[in-house]
C-alpha cells in the first residue's frame, strides 16, 4: 500500500493504529453498544486518534468541531450537561494547554462528566517539535480541583480506565500516547481509578512510573531483579487523586524512590510524589526522572526516549546510579 520502507517511522505510524488509539474507539463502541450515553468529539484529528472507527459505527455520535479545540471543550461541557458522556480528544499539547481554562471553568468547576483524552502526550510526536509535545499537561491538569487525571500504561489499561470512567461522576483527563505502546497488561486486568498497581516490592529502591514509562520501567526493574537487586515497581496510573498510601508504603519499605514520567520533572508524577513525601517527613531520597525542565530536541520518538534515558536501558542506568552500582 505504500512506497515507504516498513522500517520507517512514517510507515509504522500509518499502519499501527493499534493498540491504544484503536482501543479508544473500540472501547467507546463497546460502551455505546451496551447502552451507555457516550459521544465522541474531535477537532480535525479523527484519523490521528482513531475515533474514525467510532464515527463509522455511530456516525450521529461523532461530533466534529474542526480546528477549534477550545470550542470543542466548552461544547463538550454543554453536551455533558444534557446527560451524555462526551469523550473529547485532541493532541495533549492543545487539550491541556490551549484549552486549560475551558477545562477548568467549563468542565471541572461544573463537575460535568466530560472525558478529555489528550493523545500523543509527552514527546511522542518526536520531530514535530515543541508545539506538538506535551510535557506540561500533567502539571497543569493536576492543579485543577475536582479533575481526575489518569495516564494509562497501554491499550488494555486504557480500555479498563474508560470502562471504569462510566461510573465516575466528575470530569477526567486521560493522558495517552500515540498508540504504539508495548502491551504490559492482559485483557483481564483489574483497574480502579486512584488505586496504584504494585508490580513488585523492593527494599533497595522502588520505581514509580506512569503511562508510557511503565513498560520500559518494568523491563528495567526485571533486569535489576534478575541481577539480584531488591527493586520494586508501582504503576501510578492515576496522577490525581494520587494513591498516597502506595507512595507512603514504598517510602517506608525502600531506601530510595525513583519516579519515571514522560513529562517535565516539575509538577507531574515526580512533583506529586514529592509532595506526599514532604508531608510525610523523614522520607528516603527521591529522584525525579523525566524531562529536566527543558524543551525536547527534535528526533524520532524512539531516539528521543533513548536520548532522555526514558527507554528501558536509560531507566535501568538511572536506577543503578541510585543503587550505587
Amino acid at each position, binding site marked *: 500500500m505504500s512506497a515507504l520502507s516498513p522500517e520507517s517511522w512514517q510507515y509504522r505510524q500509518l499502519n499501527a493504529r493499534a493498540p491504544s488509539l484503536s482501543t479508544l474507539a473500540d472501547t467507546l463502541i463497546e460502551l455505546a453498544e451496551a447502552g451507555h450515553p457516550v459521544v465522541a468529539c474531535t477537532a480535525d484529528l479523527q484519523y490521528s486518534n482513531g475515533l474514525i472507527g467510532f464515527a463509522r459505527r455511530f456516525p450521529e455520535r461523532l461530533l466534529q468541531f474542526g480546528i477549534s479545540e477550545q*470550542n470543542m471543550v*466548552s461544547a463538550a461541557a*454543554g*453536551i455533558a450537561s*444534557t446527560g451524555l458522556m462526551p469523550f473529547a480528544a485532541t493532541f495533549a499539547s492543545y487539550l491541556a494547554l490551549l484549552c486549560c*481554562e475551558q477545562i477548568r471553568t*467549563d468542565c471541572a468547576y461544573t463537575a460535568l462528566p466530560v472525558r478529555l483524552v489528550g493523545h500523543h502526550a509527552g514527546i511522542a510526536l518526536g520531530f514535530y517539535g515543541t508545539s506538538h509535545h506535551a510535557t506540561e499537561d500533567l502539571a497543569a491538569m493536576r492543579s485543577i480541583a475536582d479533575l481526575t487525571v489518569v495516564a494509562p500504561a497501554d491499550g488494555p489499561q486504557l480500555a479498563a480506565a474508560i470502562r471504569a470512567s462510566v461510573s465516575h461522576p466528575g470530569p477526567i483527563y486521560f493522558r495517552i500516547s500515540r498508540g504504539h505502546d508495548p502491551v504490559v497488561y492482559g485483557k483481564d486486568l483489574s483497574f480502579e481509578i486512584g488505586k496504584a498497581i504494585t508490580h513488585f516490592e523492593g527494599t533497595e529502591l522502588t520505581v514509580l512510573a506512569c503511562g508510557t514509562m511503565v513498560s520500559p520501567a518494568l523491563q528495567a526493574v526485571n533486569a535489576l531483579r534478575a541481577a539480584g537487586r531488591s527493586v520494586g515497581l508501582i504503576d501510578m496510573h492515576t496522577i490525581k487523586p494520587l494513591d498516597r498510601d502506595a507512595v507512603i508504603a514504598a517510602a517506608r519499605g525502600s531506601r530510595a524512590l525513583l519516579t519515571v514520567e514522560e513529562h517535565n520533572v516539575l509538577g507531574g508524577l515526580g512533583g506529586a510524589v514529592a509532595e506526599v513525601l514532604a508531608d510525610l517527613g523523614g522520607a528516603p531520597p527521591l529522584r525525579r526522572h523525566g524531562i529536566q525542565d527543558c524543551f525536547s530536541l527534535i528526533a524520532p520518538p524512539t531516539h528521543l526516549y533513548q536520548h532522555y534515558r526514558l527507554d528501558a536501558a536509560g531507566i535501568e542506568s538511572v536506577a543503578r546510579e541510585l543503587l550505587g552500582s
Partner: protein
Amino acid sequence: MTAAALSNALTAEKIALLKERATFVRTETVRLIAIAKVGHYSSTFSCAEIFSVLYYDAMRLSRGNPKWPERDRFLMGKGHAAVGLYPLLADWGFFPKELLDGYTRLGSPLGDHPDMRLVPGVDFSSGSIGHALSAGLGMVLGGRVQKLDFDVYVLLGDGEMQEGQVWAAAMAAAHHKARNLVAIVDRNRFQLDGQIEEVMGIEPLADKWRSFGWEVHEVDGHDVAALAILLRRLKADLARERPVCVIAHTLKGKGVKFMETEPGWHLGYLAPEDEARVLAEITAGGGPA
C-alpha cells in the same frame, strides 16, 4: 401562526406583565447589590427586558422543576448580570426566595457570576467571557443525539464579540445547522475600558453573523412587545435550519438616568440615599420609555 397573529396574541396584560417583570429585575438588582455592596447595575439594567421576555414568555420551563430535561436552556456569556437572573429563578420556584437575602455573603450559592452546581435553575456556569455560545451549541448537539428539541438561548455581551471562541462557536453552529440555538447580543455599546467601537470595534456586527451563516434580527432590546413577538416567531419557525442571532439594541444602565449617561457605572455601589432615589426612578419608569 403569522406574524400578525402572533402579535395579536400578545395581550395588553401580557405586555404589562413583561414590563413589570423587567422593573422587578431592576429593583431586585438594586436590593441585592446593596447586600454585596458592589455589583454590575448597568450591565444588568441593559438586559432586564431580555430576562423578562425570556423567562415570562419565550422559554419553555416547568415551575419548581429546574432539571426538567425538555426545558429550554439559558446561558449567560455576560455572567456578570446574574444578579438580575437570580430573582427570576427564585420566582420560578427553583430555589427558596430567602436565599436572595444572603446574596454573595459567605457560603451563599449566589455570586456575581452564576454557578450551576450551586444554583438550581442556572443551566451553565459562567464568568469567563466567550465560552457560553460553545456550551450552548453543545447543549443543542446533546439534545439532538437524544431526540430532544429544546431551544437554547445564549445572552452575549457585545464586548464578548471580541473573543475568538465566539466565532469558532458561530462557525460550528451554522455548520451543524443548530436551528435551536438563539444568540442574543446585548448591544449596549460599552465595555470596561470605554465605548466598544473605541476599544475594539465589532461592526458591521449583523453582517459578521450573516456571513457566518446565521439568521440575524435586530430589535429594540427594551421593547418587550417587539422582543416577545420576535422570539415567538423564531419558536414557531420550524422550517429554519440556521441558528439565529438577535442583536438587541440596548442602553447600558437603562432606567436610571445618571447610569445611562455615566459609563463608570459598569461596577459600582449606591449610597443608601441614592438607592432610594434610584428605586423611585425605576419604579416610576415602570418599563421602556
